[in-house]
């Protein structure tokens, strides 16, 4: 119980600091909402020029965009700020975190839990729900289950990617924006039907890194469409399982990173 009390105290501190800058908080709440709104607007703008992109209609694409938005915003809200690990390593803040008798990852999460991203999460879920309605899905028990599990699995998967790319800072402090290629880049990748990408690029992101199983495959299963790229129909239902190995790898790399960590001494 003592541990939970400590996390509540961290969260409370965060809430009070937000209350001190109310105007900025309100603007941040709206701007964060805006970032996801603009992702969706982009899809609409692109579909102004054509009815079909990569063999998929606007409504079908929106299902992938919505699924991605719901999962990504969930992950970004809970663990997205782990991106700051580079800064914590460089400035020595991580030393302070390490000497406390609490687990490192939850501490980092609660030190800066961005509640300003709440509205954005709500919008992500709204787009996903709207896309589910717009596609006139033939509901079965399996599809209903998939519709609920898929965004959560997407969130867990993106969360693992956030932790994994942040861990890079343990070995390479100046890794800068590389993590964004796989977190935000991964989000952009899964927001569109993966049929649009070139062969080797798709193989790398969709299958080697697993991003193809985050939104594209579950969306196919929900829509009842066969995969033009040749994966069997059950792949869409099995796709959420990709979150499990992602979490295992992220946990392993994170643990190794923490043990490998050497203070910068500043």
């Amino acid at each position, binding site marked *: 119980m003592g541990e939970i009390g400590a996390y509540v105290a961290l969260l409370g501190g965060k809430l009070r600091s937000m209350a001190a*800058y109310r*105007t*900025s*908080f*309100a*603007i*941040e709440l*709206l*701007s*964060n909402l*805006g*970032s996801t709104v*603009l992702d969706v*607007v*982009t899809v609409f*703008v*692109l579909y*102004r*020029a*054509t*009815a*079909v*992109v*990569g063999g998929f209609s606007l409504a079908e694409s929106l299902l992938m965009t919505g699924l991605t938005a719901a999962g990504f915003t969930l992950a970004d809200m809970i663990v997205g700020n782990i991106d700051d690990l580079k800064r914590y390593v460089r400035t020595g803040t991580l030393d302070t975190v390490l000497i406390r008798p609490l687990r490192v990852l939850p501490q980092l999460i609660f030190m800066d839990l961005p509640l300003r991203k709440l509205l954005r999460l709500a919008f992500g879920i709204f787009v996903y729900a709207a896309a589910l309605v717009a596609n006139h899905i033939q509901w079965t028990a399996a599809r209903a289950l998939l519709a609920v599990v898929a965004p959560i699995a997407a969130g867990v998967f993106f969360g693992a990617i956030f932790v994994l790319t942040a861990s890079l800072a343990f070995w*390479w402090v*100046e*890794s*800068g*924006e*590389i993590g*964004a*290629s*796989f977190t935000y*880049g991964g989000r*952009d*990748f899964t927001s*569109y039907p993966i*049929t*649009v*990408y*070139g062969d080797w*690029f798709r193989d790398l992101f969709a299958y080697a890194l697993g991003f193809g199983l985050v939104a594209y495959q579950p969306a196919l299963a929900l829509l009842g469409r066969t995969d033009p790229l040749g994966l069997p129909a059950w792949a869409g239902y099995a796709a959420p399982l990709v979150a499990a190995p992602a979490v295992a790898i992220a946990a392993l790399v994170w643990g190794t990173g923490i043990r490998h960590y050497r203070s910068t001494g500043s």
Partner: protein
Amino acid sequence: MGGIDASVLTISPGRPLRASVTTFGALVGSGFRRYATYRQATIAGSFTNIVFGFLRCYVLLAVAAGAVGGRPGGYDTAQLATFVWVGQGLLTVVGIWGPPDLSDRIRSGDVASDLLRPVAPVTAYLAADLGRFLHAVLTRMIGPLIVGAIFFTLAVPTRWQTVPLFAVSAVLATIGSFGCRFLINATAYWLHDARGPLVLWTLSSGLLAGLYFPLRMLPEWLAVTLWVATPFPGLLQTPLDVLVERDPPVQQAGLVLLQACWAVALLALCRLVQHRAERKLVVQGG
């Protein structure tokens, strides 16, 4: 070393112009060296630009494949690919997402030492940003351009004036971007924490400058309104349109002129805001 450095220069009373040019040059040089220090960040940043180049290019080409006549927004596929790949380099050159130095210094109170210097803050910050621009021109354009040229067919300029006009347009875009960022950061004089306005800027600039898709894909009335009423298209879209020769030469020159008007207006606004801020500034920290 023998070269110029950031130490205080002798200001020659008889030749004020020469003195201010030397000072400005020294500040540009120090801005350049600041970024030249972080070589790994340059590589990491280019890698990220390249990944996003692939993502955006494939999506836009897929849109072109389905569009009527294969020309969404009036661009052919080579023009679209050039737009994306040069855009990925230009993004850093123009510095749309530069570091929030000024607002950090306002919050910490360090801005007080900027005010003690014999150079106006807007001028000093502009000089440092032009140093950053020079460094980015030399390092950040090459990576995306080479990768783009290897994997896609890029459009090669056919008119003699395209490349010089693009260079002018890119400098104007940098000044415009500097002006916008200065104003956004300067909100910290009043708000103390510019994080909210900065997020708003990061967001709107990417979309409204044409990074996510060419603005010509928007309904025409909206695109025209953006061009005339906001500085955003001048930050990326205009130089890229110039380079891919989207419009006839006269219209291109007109767009660059519009960019120049915005650059001048933004710098004037920066001076005004800075002046107002200095009258009410309470130095933070201690």
